């Protein structure tokens, strides 16, 4: 179970690192290489984004990666296959991240069955609020998969409690308004916000959107359980290559 894994890792280190890739960007082969490098560098869990043509919650970096992957002809079938291969090959939990239409068109039940069969642990679906998620929740719980839900700084306490009742594994707290990839100021406000999140759920908390280096992760240590780095690793790969990205992650996780 995802939560159990997270708790046991947290017994060994103060904060975990989750990274993000877009499957098929820049190519399926290079995606595999990126995963291998990230795992070797000490990443604790990973989101694998299945590209979608209308990624409304994503900023320019991940948006472009989605479009490029689709332009390369990447299919949902290939993404599911990719998930199966990495889950068998590497010893960390993998989650799918994608938009609801991908699940809906594949069949929500079938998608969850395929996830279980492939060895994935859960999914993050940013455009699926709990109100619309009845089918998804059934399918995920039947397969003992974790539906990861999202808190935002605009989420009321009452709503945080409601979300906590259906969430599993951990809760993904977005650091601020806006889309992925923009700057985030890591200030006391974030600490207060994570405090509110902590009160609403007993699940571990991940914090993402704008986390970009060791300083940010150090700031989050003691406040969140998982730091999520998304756009920044993509930028490092694009500008300096996969090797540099591995070093970047080792530096972030290292002492």
């Amino acid at each position, binding site marked *: 179970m995802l939560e159990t894994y997270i708790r046991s890792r947290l017994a060994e280190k103060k904060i975990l690192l989750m990274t993000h890739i877009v499957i098929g960007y820049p190519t399926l082969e290079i995606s595999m290489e990126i995963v291998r490098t990230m795992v070797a560098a000490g990443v604790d869990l990973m989101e694998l984004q299945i590209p*979608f*043509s*209308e*990624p*409304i*919650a994503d*900023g320019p970096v991940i*948006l*472009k990666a989605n*479009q490029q992957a*689709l332009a390369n002809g990447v*299919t*949902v*079938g290939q993404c599911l296959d990719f998930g199966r291969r990495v889950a068998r090959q590497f010893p960390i939990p993998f989650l799918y991240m994608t*938009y*609801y*239409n*991908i699940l*809906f*068109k*594949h069949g929500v039940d079938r998608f969850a069955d395929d996830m279980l069969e492939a060895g994935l642990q859960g999914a993050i679906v*940013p*455009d*699926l*609020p*709990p*109100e*619309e998620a009845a089918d998804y929740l059934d399918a995920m719980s039947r397969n003992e998969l974790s539906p990861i*839900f*999202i*808190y*935002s*700084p*605009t*989420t*009321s306490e009452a*709503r945080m409690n*409601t979300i906590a009742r259906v969430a599993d594994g951990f809760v993904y707290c*977005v650091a601020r*308004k*806006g*889309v992925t990839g*923009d700057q985030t100021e890591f200030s006391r406000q974030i600490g207060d916000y994570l405090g509110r999140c902590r009160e609403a759920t007993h699940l571990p908390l991940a914090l993402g959107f704008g986390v970009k280096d060791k300083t940010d992760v150090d700031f989050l240590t003691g406040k969140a359980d998982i730091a999520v780095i998304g756009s920044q690793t993509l930028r490092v790969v694009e500008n300096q290559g996969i090797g540099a990205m591995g070093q970047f992650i080792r530096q972030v996780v290292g002492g």
Partner: protein
Amino acid sequence: MIKRGYYGNFGGAFLPEILVATFDELEGVYNDARNDPRFWHDYELLMSSYSCRPTPITYAQNLTSHFGGARIFIKREDLNHTGAHKANNVMGQGLLVKRMGKTRVIAETGAGQHGVATATMAARFGFDCTIYMGEVDVERQRPNVFWMEQLGATVVPVTDGSRILKDAINEAFRDWVTNMDSTHYVLGTACGPHPFPEMVSWFQSIIGKEARRQFMEREGRLPSRVFACVGGGSNAMGVFSGFFDDDVELVGVEAAGRGLDSGEHASRLCSNDASVGVAQGYKTYFLQDDDGQMKETHSIAAGLDYVGVSPILSDLKEKGRVRFEGATDREVIEALRLTMKKEGVIPALESAHAFARAFKEAPEMAADEIILINQSGRGDKDIFTIADAFDDPKWKRFIVEKAKQYHA
């Protein structure tokens, strides 16, 4: 937990968590306005003094005798300020923005009509204004880009995706999730997450209310068929809503582009190419592939070139209350030419889809039947596209000369 905004199996609110509070606020203000009879009164007053409401219905005598069937009437939404029905929605949402105390509006636009209407509303109410427009549409609707900028709006060309309407909507959402405290997103059609489909249809229902009254006053009876073009579905919902409870056949006309068999069209409800999906915050029929990736669409009319369609219309189609048909680019150009020659009115390319279909059906109808065509907008904005389609040599010469002057 409560699911909101469903019409049969369609609609809903598939929102990123960060926007839920903003939608709660919007829904609250909208419900208050709907329950406040003064709001609709003020809205009608505004539309009668700032736009040209009520817009007339025009009896198209020459077209009627040309086709020799049903009598043809035209609802003249082209006579609105800024030349399209878009003004109805925009001014209504503007009043809500004032109630919410926000100071900035953003909008997507395809044909540019909604963008221009939003820019006038922002100028009049004193809001900052940013308009997102796909790069392809910036190119084909240049006159409207010019006007938006003169009205004080910032026009942002969208270079992602297929660079048309749906991509402009995505970009507007990205702006909104960042700036929702100060900003309202004036969605231009009866699509998107709840409450937009219902709210936009409500503002546009002013068309149907007027049309129904005008027919009763003038003819003492209702039309037997009503035709409206369908992009997102707002003008269609507007005019249809006046006749839902009557024995009136409602026909929505989609863009058949280069033909329904060509794959190059934007027909979600009258073709077999669309399927149910969830994107841009709502569930409806989308033109998408088996994986759920949205397809490229095509129409000569920028305002009909959209992958989704109002969830309310999807439901009305399944219930059999509205019939959906397509009109091809070529049929549309012919209908436009004929309408101009016979009646001296200039429909927008979008509206001309409704004319094209009505012209197919009119001759087969009895002389005592009445057709109503909703002319959603005027064609001036389309001068470049129409001139190209007509292949007008004098216009080409003019453009070449004009370009030379700029080079001089």
